């Protein structure tokens, strides 16, 4: 698990990476820079993932494979690993100008390795 997170946090601009239980919103593993509240990010990301999953099912688009929230001072990038309900979320917290494509690639790799 730590190897999977290592690969994500090595990307320039990534401030932290976590594996989060999608059902509980609890941190399973984390590598975060100081100042990031892992528990809060995990709880809110899992809550959002659950709502997104239901919205996408209702819209008939199938399950999400990657989502990216861009904020003024940073970004949250998430890949639901395996069965999004009851599975693991791979979460990255990044600077606003991070290379999104590269982080996405590492998140997808990490999701494959941990599921």
């Amino acid at each position, binding site marked *: 698990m730590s190897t999977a997170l290592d690969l994500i946090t090595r990307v320039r601009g990534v401030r932290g990476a976590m594996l989060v239980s999608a059902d*509980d919103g*609890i941190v399973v593993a984390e590598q975060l820079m100081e100042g990031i509240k892992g528990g809060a990010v995990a709880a809110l990301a*899992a*809550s959002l993932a*659950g709502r997104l999953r239901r919205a996408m099912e209702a819209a008939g688009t199938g399950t999400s494979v990657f989502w990216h929230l861009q904020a003024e001072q940073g970004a949250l990038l998430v890949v639901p690993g395996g069965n999004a309900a009851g599975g693991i979320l791979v979460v990255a917290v990044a600077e606003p100008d991070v290379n999104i494509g590269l982080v996405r690639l590492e998140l997808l790799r990490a999701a494959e390795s941990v599921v």
Partner: protein
Amino acid sequence: MSPQTRAVESWTLKPLTDFVRESSVRLVLVLTPAGQVLAQSGFSRAVDVMSAAALAAAIVASTGELARQLRQPPFAALSHQGPKNGFFLATFTAERGTLAVLAVYDLDVSSLGLVQLFYEQLAADLKTASPKGAVPKQVLAADFERELTDSLNTLFGR
């Protein structure tokens, strides 16, 4: 303010209302380890409040004793998750004395992580709001039934 949130001790109302709104829990009780309810949210029947408070107090007492036998400090929190609902029970110490919070949540709308996250805020807010230097009032056996009835009437707005 949610119409279903009511408090016997008014200083608990704002923190509890915020907790219910933010964590999306279905039912909450704030009580003493003896089972005296200070505030409730989401309950519609007095008998449910009495049962939940008695059971929560019993869990606090039994886990406290288990911790004592293991020579550990009392457990900070207990969580149980079923297929559709979860419950979370935790204690903390404020000026008012030790208080317990019992929260029941639907897994469709909340999660253990969210409840834990906002419980920390609730505990901090209750500690801040707790009356300073207040000595918990002793309830005599002779007054118990009247005190209980008064509390239930307050909790259900009667």
